[in-house]
C-alpha cells in the first residue's frame, strides 16, 4: 500500500518506488492540422484544412468574419515565440489584434511549397531573431494586397487606400470596408516580392513592442491544452520503450515471454539496434510489461575500454589530460602571447573549473505518435524542428518525404532536447511493424533520463598574470570537453575542418565572424582561449544556453578570482577591460545597467554580498548582479538577482521578462542541484528523486529584469541570461566565503568548514 504524498508535507527527495491539433483556431483555414479538442477520449482525426481562397500570401489568412489567422513556422514550447511572431506579422498587416488567431503550417506543406515558411527549426534563441524580417514582410505584403483589392473594388489608386486596425478606407470618397470583406479578392492577387516591402521603424510599432497577452494561455489553465502525450487517435495503441542504458550499445538478446502474457499487451518489438518496445491497450500496461522484459546488450569499446566500464571519474581523468595537451588544440581567441605574458607577470593566478553533464528534464517526457502504411506515414509530435521530424519520419518509414507528414503539437518544454528526433525515429520504426495502427510511444521518465542528450561535461584550466599595478597582462583558458557537434552533428564538424567552433560560445573574437553572436567582451593584451576535444560514448546535446553556460562560469568566476588577487573591485576590474574597445561598449552598458539597478556597492544587511557577471550570447548582451548570503551552515540564499539584457529590439516586454526570470530557474537549478553521473557506462540518475531540480523554495527571493534594448540588431532572449545567473551567484558566494567555487553543482560543495 502506497502512502499518498500530500502537498504541504515536506516531500522527501527520495520517494520509494512501487513497483488534434490544436491550433489557436480549430475551425481556421489554411493548412493547419485541425484536431477537434472535444472530449479527450474522442478520436482526433487530423485533416488538412484548405481554404486557399482567403490565404493572402503565405503568412496570413483572413476570414470573411474578419478573423485573422497568422501562420507560425517555429515551435511554441513556452518561450512565447508564437505570440511574438504573430505580433510582428500583425504589426505590418495593421490588423485588429483582438481578431488574431494562429496556426502551424505543416512541415509537409512547407516542403511541398518549396519552404515558403522558411526554417522551422526552433533553437538557439532564433525564433524571432531568425525570422523577424520575412514574417514582417509577409504581413506587409498581405496588407498591400488588401489595399489593392479595395482599390480595385472602388476603382481608385491603391496609394489612396489606407489600412489600419483591419479597416480599409478611401478618404476622398469616404468609403470604407474591412479586411474580411475584401479578403477573397485580395487572395486572388499576385503576392508582391517580399524583399521590396518597406517595413516600419520600430519607433512606430503599435502591436509589436507591446506586452500583448499570449495567444496560447487559456487552455493551459483548464487542462484542455493537448500536448503530444495527450493525443488520442481512433484505434490507437500505447507503447513504452527501453533503449540501451549504455549509449551506443546494442541489443544482443531479450526475453519477452513474461511480458507477452501480461494484461493488455499486444506485442513486443525490437526497435532499431538497441531498443525493445511493448505495445498495449494502455501506457501503464505497456510500461509495466516492459519492466518484465529481460534484455542483454553488446557493449562496444573505445580505445580498448569497453563502454560499460566508463565512469564519471574515468571521464574526468580523460578530460583532465586535455588541459595540458599540445596536439589537436583548436584556438578560439588569441591576442598577443598569453603564455609569455603570464610567465613574466608579477603575480600569477591559476585555477581549474569543472562542469558536469546535465539533463534537460522537459516536464513532458519524450513522445511521438505514428501511423505507418506502405503508402503514407504520419507523425504527431511535440518537436522543436518540424522539418527534422519529417526527415526522421521519412528515413525510418522508408518512404519519400512527400509521402510523410508531421503534425506539430504544443511542447511540454523543449530546452534543446526536442530538436533531436530519436523519439520520432523510434515511433515510426515501431509503427512500421504494425501497419495501419496508430501507436503513441511515450518514454517513461526513466527512459527519458537514461536516453538524454546531455549538456556536455567539460573542464577548464585558467591562468592569469598581473603586473605590479594589478593590471591584467595575460589570460589563458584551456577548455577540455566533449563536443556536441561530434556527438550528434558530425557533418557540421566535418564542414569546419573537424573543429568545434561552438566550444567558444561567448568567447569569440570581437573582431571575428561570430562577434555578433557572442563576442568576448574584454580587451586583454595577451589572450589565449583554446580547446581540446575529449569525447565520450555518452550522447551530448544542446541544453538551453548550450556552451555559454559553463564558459561564463569559467571566465566570469575566474575574473573575480583575478580581481581579488589584484585587490580590485570586480566591477571596476571589468570596466577597465571593457572600456578600451568601442565594440565592447554594449557589453559594458548592460553591466552598468545592472550595477545601477542593483545598487551594487551600496551597504547591504550584514552577511549579504554582491556578485556580478556579464557575457554575450545568442546575439544579446547580458549581465547579472546577485545579492546573496551564506549561512554558517553553508546554506545559500539568493536575496535578489538583477538580470540585464540588451536584445536590440523587444517584441513583447512582458514575455522577455518571463523568459529572463524563467531562465534564472533553469540556470540556478543547474548551479545548485543538477548533475548527471556515469557508472558502468550508464546514467546513474533515472528519475527526479535522484536528479534534483530547483523548486519554489530555492528560487531567489526576488528576480528583477532590466531590459535596455539599444536597437539596430535582433538578439535572442530565451537563452542568453541563463549564462550570467550562475556566475553572478557564484561570485557573490565567493565574496561571502572568500573561497571560489570551481565545481558544480553546489550541493556537492562544502561552503563553510
Amino acid at each position, binding site marked *: 500500500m*502506497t*502512502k*499518498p*504524498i*500530500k*502537498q*504541504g508535507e515536506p*516531500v522527501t*527527495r527520495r*520517494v520509494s518506488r*512501487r513497483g488534434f491539433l490544436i491550433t489557436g483556431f480549430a475551425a481556421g483555414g489554411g493548412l493547419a492540422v485541425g484536431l477537434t479538442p472535444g*472530449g*479527450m*477520449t*474522442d478520436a482526433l482525426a487530423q485533416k488538412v484544412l484548405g481554404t486557399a481562397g482567403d490565404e493572402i500570401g503565405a503568412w496570413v489568412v483572413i476570414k470573411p468574419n474578419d478573423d485573422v489567422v497568422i501562420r507560425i513556422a517555429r515551435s511554441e514550447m*513556452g*518561450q512565447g515565440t508564437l505570440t511574438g511572431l504573430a505580433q510582428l506579422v500583425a504589426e505590418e498587416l495593421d490588423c485588429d489584434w483582438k481578431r488574431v488567431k494562429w496556426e502551424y503550417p505543416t512541415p509537409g506543406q512547407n516542403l511541398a511549397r518549396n519552404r515558403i515558411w522558411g526554417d522551422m527549426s526552433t533553437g538557439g534563441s532564433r525564433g524571432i531573431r531568425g525570422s523577424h524580417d520575412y514574417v514582417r514582410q509577409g504581413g506587409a505584403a498581405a496588407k498591400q494586397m488588401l489595399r489593392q483589392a479595395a482599390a480595385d473594388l472602388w476603382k481608385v489608386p491603391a496609394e489612396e487606400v489606407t489600412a489600419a486596425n483591419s479597416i480599409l478606407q478611401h478618404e476622398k470618397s469616404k468609403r470604407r470596408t474591412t479586411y474580411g470583406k475584401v479578403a477573397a479578392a485580395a487572395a486572388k492577387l499576385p503576392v508582391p516580392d517580399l524583399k521590396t516591402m518597406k517595413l516600419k521603424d520600430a519607433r512606430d510599432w503599435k502591436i509589436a513592442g507591446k506586452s500583448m*497577452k*499570449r495567444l496560447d*494561455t*487559456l487552455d*493551459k*489553465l*483548464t*487542462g484542455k491544452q*493537448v*500536448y503530444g*502525450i495527450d493525443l488520442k487517435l481512433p484505434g490507437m495503441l500505447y507503447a513504452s520503450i527501453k533503449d540501451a542504458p549504455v549509449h551506443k550499445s546494442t541489443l544482443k538478446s531479450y526475453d519477452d515471454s513474461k511480458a507477452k502474457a501480461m*494484461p493488455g499487451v499486444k506485442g513486443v518489438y525490437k526497435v532499431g539496434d538497441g531498443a525493445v518496445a511493448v505495445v498495449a491497450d*494502455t*501506457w*501503464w500496461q505497456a510500461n509495466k510489461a516492459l519492466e518484465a522484459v529481460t534484455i542483454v546488450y553488446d557493449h562496444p569499446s573505445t580505445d580498448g575500454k569497453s563502454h560499460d566500464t566508463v565512469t564519471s571519474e574515468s571521464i574526468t581523468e580523460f578530460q583532465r589530460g586535455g588541459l595540458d595537451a599540445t596536439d589537436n588544440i583548436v584556438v578560439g581567441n588569441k591576442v598577443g602571447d598569453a603564455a609569455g605574458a603570464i610567465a613574466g607577470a608579477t603575480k600569477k593566478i591559476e585555477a581549474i573549473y569543472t562542469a558536469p553533464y546535465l539533463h*534537460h528534464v*522537459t*516536464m*513532458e517526457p519524450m513522445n511521438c505518435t505514428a501511423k505507418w502504411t506502405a503508402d503514407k506515414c504520419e507523425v504527431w509530435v511535440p518537436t522543436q524542428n518540424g522539418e527534422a521530424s519529417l526527415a526522421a519520419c521519412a528515413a525510418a518509414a522508408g518512404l519519400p518525404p512527400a509521402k510523410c507528414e508531421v503534425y506539430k503539437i*504544443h*511542447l*511540454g*518544454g523543449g*530546452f534543446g532536447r526536442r530538436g533531436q528526433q530519436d523519439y520520432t525515429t523510434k515511433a515510426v520504426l515501431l509503427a512500421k511493424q504494425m501497419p495501419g495502427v496508430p501507436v503513441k510511444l*511515450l518514454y*517513461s*521518465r526513466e527512459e527519458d533520463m537514461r536516453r538524454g542528450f546531455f549538456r556536455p561535461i567539460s573542464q577548464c584550466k585558467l591562468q592569469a598574470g598581473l603586473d605590479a599595478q594589478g593590471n591584467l597582462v595575460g589570460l589563458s583558458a584551456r577548455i577540455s570537453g566533449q563536443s556536441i557537434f561530434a556527438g550528434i552533428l558530425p557533418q557540421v564538424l566535418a564542414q569546419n575542418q573537424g573543429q568545434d567552433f561552438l566550444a567558444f560560445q561567448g568567447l569569440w573574437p570581437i573582431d571575428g565572424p561570430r562577434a555578433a553572436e557572442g563576442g568576448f567582451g574584454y580587451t586583454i593584451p595577451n589572450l589565449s582561449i583554446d580547446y581540446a576535444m575529449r569525447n565520450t560514448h555518452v550522447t551530448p546535446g544542446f541544453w538551453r544556453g548550450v556552451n555559454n553556460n559553463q564558459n561564463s562560469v569559467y571566465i566570469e568566476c575566474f575574473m573575480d578570482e583575478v580581481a581579488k588577487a589584484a585587490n580590485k573591485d570586480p566591477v571596476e576590474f571589468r570596466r577597465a577591460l571593457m572600456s578600451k574597445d568601442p565594440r565592447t561598449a554594449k557589453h559594458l552598458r548592460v553591466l552598468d545597467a545592472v550595477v545601477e539597478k542593483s545598487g551594487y556597492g551600496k551597504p547591504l544587511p550584514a552577511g549579504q554580498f554582491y556578485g556580478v557577471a556579464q557575457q554575450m550570447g545568442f546575439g544579446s548582451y547580458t549581465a547579472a548582479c546577485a545579492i546573496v548570503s551564506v549561512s554558517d551552515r553553508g546554506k545559500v540564499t539568493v536575496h535578489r538577482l538583477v538580470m540585464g539584457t540588451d536584445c536590440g529590439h523587444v517584441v513583447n516586454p*512582458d*514575455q522577455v521578462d*518571463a523568459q529572463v*526570470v*524563467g*531562465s534564472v*530557474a533553469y540556470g540556478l*537549478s543547474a548551479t545548485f542541484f543538477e548533475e548527471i553521473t556515469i557508472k558502468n557506462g550508464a546514467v546513474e540518475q533515472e*528519475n*527526479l*528523486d535522484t536528479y534534483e*531540480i530547483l*523548486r*519554489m523554495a530555492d*528560487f531567489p527571493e*526576488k528576480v528583477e529584469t532590466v531590459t535596455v534594448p539599444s536597437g539596430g540588431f535582433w538578439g535572442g532572449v530565451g537563452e542568453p541570461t541563463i549564462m550570467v545567473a550562475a556566475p553572478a551567484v557564484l561570485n557573490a558566494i565567493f565574496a561571502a566565503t572568500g573561497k571560489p567555487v570551481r565545481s558544480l553543482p553546489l550541493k556537492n560543495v562544502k561552503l563553510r568548514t
Partner: protein
Amino acid sequence: MAKLNVNGKSLDLKVDGDTPLLWALRDQAGLTGTKYGCGVGQCGACSVHVNGEVQRSCAILVKDLKPGDRIVTIEGLSPSGTHPVQKAWLELEVAQCGYCQTGQIMAAAALLKKKPKPTDKDIDDAMTNICRCGTYQRVRAGIKMAANGGKKVPG
C-alpha cells in the same frame, strides 16, 4: 474494474487495481489535464484533490481509493475555468509551456482553501511542484493575487 468518483461523476473504469490513479484518469477516464511528469511523486504535475486534499495521483493506486472518495481534477476545479487561481494565472501570464501548470493550479487552490492568506513560507512549503520553464516567481504572485481578491499584490 474500479468505481471512482471523479469531478462529481461516478465512473466505472476498466482498470487493474494496481494502476496509479494518474493513469486511470488519463488513459481510461480521458482526463488528460492531469499530467505525467515523473511517476514517483516528485514533480507534482499529476496533482489532484482527493477529499479536498491535494495529492499526487501517480502515487495513489486505484485499489486504495474508495468509491466515496471525491476526486477532483483540473477539469473539475471550475467548470468555467474561472477559479480565482485560474483568473490570476491568466491575468499574470503565469504559464509558459503550461505542462506543469494544471498541477500548480491544483496545489495553489488547495493551499488557498486551507490558508486563504498564505505567507511566503506557506507558499514555499505547499508549492513543491517542479516547473522547468521557471515560472515560480509568477506562481507566487498569482497565489498572492488570488488571495487578495483578484487584485495584484506589488512584488
